[in-house]
């Protein structure tokens, strides 16, 4: 009986451990919509929608004609399809809230993933400033320069 209890406790503890480890993983669902992958992935990597809240994606899709200094306008059918995909898979689309909601105040609608508290926390602690100046990095939007499987939503390599 005692042994059984011990086993139960050990099982519970190991369950807790594996769960917290899996929460620490930087994995996101890969984009599974061909239109989204193509249209959002021509000039930069197509970023996984779980990295911004719904309100941010709505704002971005409203301003495509001035998209971070370039005209990225789309026909309305394509734009609506992309907006629906991004908002329904956003960081706050699940009831438990994604990692990118951490530290994000209700009034904050960041337009850049690099402005979210989670991104800043993850990169400020680990990435030295010289790494950003490496010519192969080009831009902070170039996730793939340091995360070779970023396209597949896998940032778990540091």
């Amino acid at each position: 009986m005692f042994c059984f209890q011990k086993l139960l406790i050990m099982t519970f503890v190991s369950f807790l451990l594996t769960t917290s480890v899996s929460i620490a993983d930087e994995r996101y669902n890969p984009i599974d919509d061909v239109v989204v992958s193509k249209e959002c992935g021509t000039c930069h990597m197509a970023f996984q929608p779980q990295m911004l809240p719904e309100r941010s994606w709505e704002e971005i899709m409203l301003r495509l004609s001035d998209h971070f200094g370039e005209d990225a306008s789309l026909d309305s059918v394509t734009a609506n399809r992309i907006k629906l995909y991004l908002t329904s898979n956003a960081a706050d689309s699940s009831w438990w809230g994604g990692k990118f909601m951490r530290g994000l105040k209700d009034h904050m609608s960041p337009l850049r993933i690099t402005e979210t508290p989670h991104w800043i926390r993850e990169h400020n602690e680990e990435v030295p400033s010289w790494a950003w100046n490496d010519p192969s990095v080009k831009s902070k939007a170039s996730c793939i320069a340091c995360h070779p499987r970023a396209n597949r939503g896998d940032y778990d390599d540091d």
Partner: protein
Amino acid sequence: MKTLNKTNVITAVVLLIGGLSPNLASANSARDTIISGFSSVAELPVSAERGKALFESSPAAGKPDTPSCTTCHGASPMTSGMTRAGKPIEPMAVSVTAERFTDLKKVQKWFRRNCKSVLGRECTAQEKGDFLTFMSSR
């Protein structure tokens, strides 16, 4: 053995050309149709010279980060460019990238976006026809 190798090479080349040329021909005809569409409503006959001048100009009349075509596409149409976010852009010269300018929707989309980003306005049919004529000649 040597003859066999030679025969193999010739067969491979013939197969390659045979396999490619219908695609090339249809790409060329799709592009020609697009260019004639622009030239039919342009004031002057389309000109590769004017297209070259447009490509090399620096109007700086659109968005501050993109003063000219060459900002992202690079100084020569024969070589790759790079987006501001670090993604490569295939060369625009048709001799290098054969499938360039063969999809009207795509052509219109990128002229709309990039003319607004660089010139601050949409390009005219004349400018589009000139530009594509230049890229087709390279």
